[in-house]
């Protein structure tokens, strides 16, 4: 039995003694949002570089999953809403100072864009596929003419989506562990890494998987750099932030974070990919699975630790 006495006179369920407002829905959404941003970003980049035929899984197959995964993520986000019928209110205002407003407008743009992008590439992946209504064929053909413009828009919106998943948390200054500008770039790079891992699972072409492994090694190195800076930043800040960092440096999240997220989710898959591109080990799907599991766990831990960290120690 764990008894907690609150003597402040405040009676705020889910806020005292620490925040317990966000459950599984938000980390699942943040993970899927990052994953989709990574898939769309590299698909658009390699499309613009004219590599669609050489790297078909990156450019054409990966994006087929993007709208589906994003829809699942958005469903999770919707389930989290307290007043579900009020969701339309996000689209009655543009508030530049609110990351949620940025996020909802980004989602309003990227969801149809990703669907369009998937439809454009569907005919290359499944050549025998026929739509029952000719109007759809005509619409897809019409938008195919603007593929390059759509790819550029995807690069912009995928970056915004990946970045916003971190900024959504870091803008919430009332929680010391989220109160850092590093979360935006960290989630962006982690999203890229998980997106690359997802395409690695789908790809059957050795050259393509080699390229993906190279990209992933780079992304993992940047992630490790950002994680180190995250903690250096906290430790050089106020006592409140030092306490927040201590949750991971001897506190309750130490083992989960350093063993599972950093060790098994970044260092080990990075090492395996490095050995793989050098031909020391045979290629397997194991590093990709580890990266995906690590990415999901990172968001769960960051979300929980952020809610746990507070100003009133």
């Amino acid at each position, binding site marked *: 039995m*764990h008894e907690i006495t609150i003597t402040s006179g405040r009676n705020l369920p889910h806020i005292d003694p620490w925040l317990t407002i966000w459950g599984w829905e938000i980390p699942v959404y943040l993970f899927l949002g990052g994953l989709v941003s990574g898939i769309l970003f590299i698909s658009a980049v390699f499309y613009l570089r004219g590599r669609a035929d050489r790297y078909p899984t990156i450019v054409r197959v990966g994006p087929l999953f993007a709208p589906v995964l994003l829809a699942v993520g958005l469903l999770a986000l919707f389930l989290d809403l307290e007043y579900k019928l009020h969701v339309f209110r996000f689209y009655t205002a543009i508030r530049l100072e609110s990351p949620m407003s940025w996020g909802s407008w980004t989602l309003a743009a990227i969801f149809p864009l990703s669907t369009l992008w998937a439809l454009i590439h569907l005919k290359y992946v499944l050549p025998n596929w026929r739509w029952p209504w000719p109007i759809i064929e005509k619409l897809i053909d019409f938008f195919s003419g603007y593929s390059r413009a759509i790819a550029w828009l995807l690069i912009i919106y995928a970056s915004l989506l990946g970045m916003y998943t971190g900024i959504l948390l870091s803008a919430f200054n009332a929680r010391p562990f989220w109160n850092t500008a590093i979360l935006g770039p960290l989630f962006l790079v982690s999203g890229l890494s998980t997106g690359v891992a997802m395409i690695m699972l789908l790809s059957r072409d050795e050259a393509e998987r080699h390229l993906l492994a190279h990209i992933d090694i780079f992304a993992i190195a940047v992630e490790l750099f950002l994680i180190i800076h995250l903690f250096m930043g906290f430790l050089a800040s106020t006592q409140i932030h030092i306490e927040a960092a201590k949750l991971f440096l001897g506190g309750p999240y130490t083992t989960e974070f350093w063993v599972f997220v950093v060790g098994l989710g970044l260092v*080990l898959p990075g090492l395996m990919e490095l050995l793989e591109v050098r031909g*020391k*080990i045979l290629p397997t799907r194991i590093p990709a699975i580890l990266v995906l599991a690590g990415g999901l766990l990172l968001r769960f831990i960051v979300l929980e630790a952020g809610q746990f960290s507070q100003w009133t120690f």
Partner: protein
Amino acid sequence: MESESQKYWSPYAAGVALGLILLLTFVLMGRGLGASGAMMRTVTWAVDTVSPAHVDSNPYFSKYAGGDKNPLSNWLVFEVIGVFFGGLLSGMLAKRMRLQVEHGPRITDKGRLVLALTGGAIMGFGARLALGCTSGQALTGGATMAVGSWIFMLTMFAAAFGVAWLFRKQWI
């Protein structure tokens, strides 16, 4: 066959390395190696998840779980996770990693798995009675020159030698 066996370490080199690892775990973690303890803690955790009341009322389980105690928060659990991934990486580096069931010519995959599971269960039960398994008792306890651990090791090998005769046809 020759090239296959060259992919494995020399057992003498591996033995020395294992001894050094054991020394290192004493220095770094203050505890030796073990294996069955991790299994026991995983089972305790599973029981605690399904029926916490049973764990609290059971004198054996309640030593490891119940209340605020997390049975998985233990060095052995993480050591075994490390052993798994270390073995995986070693198999990958030797390029001999594939899914297979190793068995003698006279027994099917299924038969081998049933025998292995039965043997493992008996071993696990015995390990809890003896307060440790081959690694916890023989390796770690033996390294500290504990008399009980040496008796355990000698008895275990003697018993295994006798029982192996009954099952020899599964392998030849």
